[in-house]
Every structure is written in structure tokens, then in C-alpha cells.
């Protein structure tokens, strides 16, 4: 929990900034039988990012990286919409889309663990080709579907809550169960922490890596369904564009090292929420588009600086460790004198 302290502080600060600009920011109302408000929006629009980041967390924990999630987002949405537009049931569409996602993820995992290609390149292949595949599915058009059942996934409500949030909770719960209740988490951290030692300890790293990439792709697939269902259409070119970057950022902000090893699911969720809140802040505070990126740079810099213990030492406790040896040296004089 202590590791989450600073990211949470940043999140709180961002929300406060919003409140300063629009006092109604925190208010949540019931409207037409569902919750309505900016905070709900953050969760709702953040849901796909949280999902993708969860999968990414595990991949990064094994010491890998997955650049292809954005493409998988697009493919999954495209396939589902194609199926629905061809009068398949929503269930079939969803199952097919997620099945394909898992397959693509397993392919990534195979390239990484089976053939031994560096993860960034292995997934770059699918990142490039996958976008093409998504556009191939939609024929380069934006494919609009009209299915209330499909709409539920990303834009609907259940028990007053946006369905997407519930979906995130379920996936988060399942991930936490698999990794923390079962031993998957430890084995993943072991493989990411020292691959050779893990091999010598008898861990089947290959299987785990394939599974993790497949899981990341599955998460991306679900996110793809959400994104496309939210706007009732599939956009092969733009859906999930650059989401891999945001996801990696969320993971890193959440305190997981890109070098692999220890990971924190909670941290990732907070990281993703920070990114989404930042986006929403930009809209509601009215940062002009030209300066959006400067604002983002500022926040990201602030987040990473404030999370760094040595920065906090140097800035907040001027007389502390910053001048580390020196005050100690003054003491020394007294001791020896």
C-alpha cells in the first residue's frame, strides 16, 4: 500500500484541480436509472485502458513488452462488428473476437518464448500487420452496427453502474485471483526477475510467457469490444491507436519496473486512472489542443519526480540525505575532536 501512496496523491491532486475549475466535478447524480457524473466518466472511459494495462502489467513483469495491444483492440472490435453486421448473435461475435485475440496473443508468446525473438520486435510485427488486418476486416470503412445487446458492453449500464466498470472489476478480480491467490504471480515475477535461475528452478517459463501474452491480448480484446461498442462502430485504423504507450505508461507509473520482476496490479489501476483523469482534465479545464502536450509533459514529469525517493529526499528534506555525507561529516568533526 505504501508504494501506492504517491500515485494516489497525484490522482487526488488532479481531481482537486478539476474541482477548482468546475465545482460540480465530484457530483454524481442518478439520471435515467444510472449514475451520471465526471467521476463515472473517468472510470467509464478509463475502463479499456485499465484492461489493456492489466494485461500489459503481466507481460512487463515477465521482462517483456507488448506493442501489439492497440492492434488487437482494433481487430477484436472489427471482427465483432463484422459478425454482428452479418447477423451473427452478439454472443458468437464476442466469443469469436475474443478467441481471435487470444490466438494472436499466443502467437506473440510463441515468437517470444518459442523462437526467442526480442519481445519488442516480436510484438511490433503484429502491431504493424494487425492494424492492416483490422482494416482488412472492416474494408477500411468505419463499420457501424446497431445492436442494443452489443451496445451494453461498452456503453450500457447494469445495476446503475456502467457495464464497462463491472467488466473491469471482474477482470481485475480474476487477474488478482490468478496471480495472488494461485501461484501464477510468483512464477511470473520469478521469470521476469531472473530467467536463467527460474529455468534451473524448474519453472516452465515458456508456457507462462505464452499464457501471459495470450492474457494481455485477451484483455486488449475485451477493451476492443468496449471501445467499439461504446460508439457502436468499428474503426480499424483508429481504435486503440497508441493505447500501448498509455498502457505501458500506466504500468510504469504504477511502480512496475520495465526490467521485469515485481509487479503491482493496484499500482497499474491507479496509473491508468491518472492517465484517464489527466485526459478528462484537459477537456474540462479547457487546455487548448496546442498546449495539451505541454500540460501532459508537466503532469508526467511531476508524477515521476514525486514518485522518486531520491527526488523527494533532495527536495523535501533539504537538510536530509541530499547533502548526505556532509552533515554527517560535521558530526564527525565533533566526534573526533
Amino acid at each position: 500500500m505504501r508504494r501506492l501512496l504517491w500515485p494516489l496523491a497525484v490522482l487526488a491532486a488532479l481531481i482537486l484541480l478539476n474541482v477548482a475549475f468546475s465545482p460540480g466535478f465530484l457530483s454524481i447524480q442518478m439520471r435515467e436509472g444510472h449514475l451520471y457524473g465526471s467521476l463515472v466518466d473517468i472510470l467509464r472511459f478509463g475502463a479499456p485502458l485499465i484492461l489493456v494495462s492489466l494485461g500489459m502489467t503481466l507481460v512487463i513483469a515477465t521482462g517483456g513488452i507488448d506493442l501489439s495491444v492497440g492492434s488487437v483492440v482494433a481487430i477484436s472490435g472489427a471482427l465483432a462488428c463484422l459478425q454482428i453486421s452479418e447477423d451473427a448473435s452478439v454472443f458468437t461475435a464476442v466469443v469469436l473476437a475474443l478467441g481471435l485475440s487470444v490466438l494472436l496473443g499466443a502467437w506473440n508468446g510463441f515468437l517470444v518464448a518459442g523462437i526467442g525473438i526480442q519481445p519488442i520486435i516480436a510484438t511490433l510485427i503484429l502491431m504493424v500487420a494487425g492494424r492492416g488486418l483490422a482494416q482488412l476486416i472492416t474494408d477500411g470503412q468505419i463499420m457501424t452496427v446497431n445492436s442494443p445487446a452489443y451496445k451494453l458492453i461498452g456503453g450500457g449500464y447494469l445495476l446503475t453502474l456502467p457495464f464497462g466498470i463491472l467488466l473491469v472489476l471482474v477482470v481485475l478480480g480474476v487477474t488478482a485471483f490468478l496471480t495472488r491467490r494461485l501461484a501464477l504471480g510468483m512464477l511470473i515475477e520469478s521469470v521476469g526477475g531472473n530467467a536463467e535461475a527460474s529455468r534451473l528452478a524448474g519453472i516452465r517459463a515458456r508456457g507462462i510467457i505464452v499464457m501471459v501474452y495470450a492474457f494481455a491480448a485477451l484483455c486488449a480484446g475485451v477493451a476492443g469490444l468496449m471501445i467499439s461498442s461504446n460508439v457502436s462502430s468499428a474503426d480499424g485504423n483508429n481504435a486503440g491507436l497508441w493505447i500501448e504507450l498509455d498502457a505501458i505508461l500506466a504500468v510504469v507509473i504504477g511502480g512496475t519496473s520495465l526490467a521485469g520482476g515485481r509487479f503491482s496490479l493496484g499500482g497499474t489501476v491507479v496509473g491508468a486512472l491518472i492517465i484517464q483523469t489527466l485526459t478528462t482534465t484537459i477537456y474540462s479545464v479547457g487546455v487548448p489542443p496546442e498546449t495539451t502536450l505541454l500540460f501532459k509533459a508537466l503532469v508526467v514529469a511531476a508524477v515521476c519526480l514525486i514518485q522518486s525517493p531520491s527526488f523527494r529526499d533532495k527536495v523535501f528534506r533539504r537538510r536530509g540525505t541530499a547533502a548526505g555525507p556532509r552533515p554527517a561529516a560535521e558530526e564527525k568533526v565533533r566526534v573526533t575532536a
Partner: protein
Amino acid sequence: GCGGGGGGAGASGGGDGSITMGFSQVGAESGWRTANTKSVQESAKAAGITLKFSDAQQKQENQIKAIRSYIQQKVDVIAFSPVVESGWDTVLKEARNAKIPVILTDRAVDSKDTGLYKTFLGSDFVEEGRKAGKWLLEEYKSGTDPVNIVELQGTTGSAPANDRKAGFQEVIGGEAKFKIIASQTGDFTRAKGKEVMEAFLKAHPDIDVLYAHNDDMGLGAIEAIEGAGKVPGKDIKIITIDAVKDGMQALADGKINYIVECSPLLGPQLMDLAKKVVKGESVPARVVTEETTFTQEQAKAALPQRQY
């Protein structure tokens, strides 16, 4: 000195009468663009022109590379839709030195040396913005109450975003009652359009008009407006640009109030021009595509014949 490789199946033009055209497309970033590509490809086939097509994935350097490669391949005519206006002089000079005529489509280049290309065929983004603004003036000419406008811009820095913003601004800027209370980029996508609009609705309860730089963002915004319990087209008036099929449908359904057309169907005109240019006939330096605007009634009438 090139062409030394073995006898592959290449379709080099030249003396045999058939024309080879190298066409460098910006990308496939939107449905509009895809329709544009299709139109070019289909009309090339219809006109008997061999088309070398390449997709630059929204990068100018890729387009330059493609054009250079077309010069290398000795095509008969090069056509391309510039990603941006500037920075084409060098490669166009190379084309001129290689005596390959160049046609611009969709968008001009800002070179001082107009001799670098034969003609420019395309729409005028600034004019589109103006058309949108003029409709707004007309719509609100009677009232004096302030009109609160929110704007969904295209991708920051992209040419259509810059020009559509400028044209719109130019027209409504003269009247004090029009106020753009929020303006944000929606990256030309539905998802972003919806997300941004949701935030706008929370931050500004009193939006009268939405101006979206393309239909897709407008369609996303419609969902946001409906989600907030308002009626698109009534509570909030919506103007968009492009007139793709989904947009026209929404217009016909009364959810959008006005669409400025930006036609992607440049193919037939392009092929005509290409033939003339290759034969050495003179062509006008600027060919404007035939574009119109749609109100809700016009949309209902036009919808059945819409191809894209």
C-alpha cells in the same frame, strides 16, 4: 543506368501507349480516405491506366520516398495527396528533371514555383469551414442571444483541422453573439469525439451548437449528447463536414442539422486529367471538385444514392 535486373513482370509505361500512374495516398486514416482510395483505384481500372499505389501512413517522408521510387520506376505520371502543404520542392524538382508530370489531388502545396506540378484537383478545406459558418449565421440571424458553440477539431496540426477551423472562425468571427466556449481535438474519430463531448457537457451545461470537423466526431458526440439526456439536433444543433453515409443517415434522422460535403470521389476527374497531361494537352491549374452542402431534407433525398 537502372533496370538491369532480370525480366520480371513490371508494368513500365512509355511507348506502348498504356499509361502508368504512381499514386501516393496519405493513408487510410478515415472512411473518407478509404472511399477516396477506392475511387482512384476503380476509375484507374475503368480508364485503363495502370496504377501504382502506395500508402504513406500519414507520413510526409513516406510520400517523398514513394514519389522518389516512382521516379525510379519511370512511371508516366505521378499523382499524390500531400499530407501537408510544405516541403515538396526537392522531390518535385526531381520529378520535373525526370520529365514526369505531377498532379496534386485533394490538397495543394505551397511551393512558389507553380511549374512544379501540372494541376491541382481537390476541395478547399477553408471554404468548407466557411460554408459551415455561413449556415450558422443564417440559422441564428434573427436572434440576439449569445450562441454558445463547442468545436471538435481534427487531429492537432493536420491540414483539414487547421483550415476548417480557420474558415469557420473567419465567418462567425464578425458577430459578437457567436462564442466558441470550448474547442478540443477529437482526432477525427468517433470514440474521441464522444469522450470529449461528454466532458464538454459536464463542464458547460449551456451548449447551443456543435461544430465538428468531420462526421465521425459528430456521430460520437451525438451519442454523448443522448447519454446526457439531451436531444441532438434540437437542444444542441450540430454541423459537420464530409457527408459520409453514416453522417447522412444521422442528418436524415434529424440528429445532425447541416453537413458540408467534402467529396472523396476524385477518381474519374483525376484519370481524365492524367490522360490529358500525359498527352501534353493543357489543363487548368486548379480544378475544384463539385461539392455541395446538405440540409436534413436534402439528405433524405440524397441518401439512397450515396455510395460511401
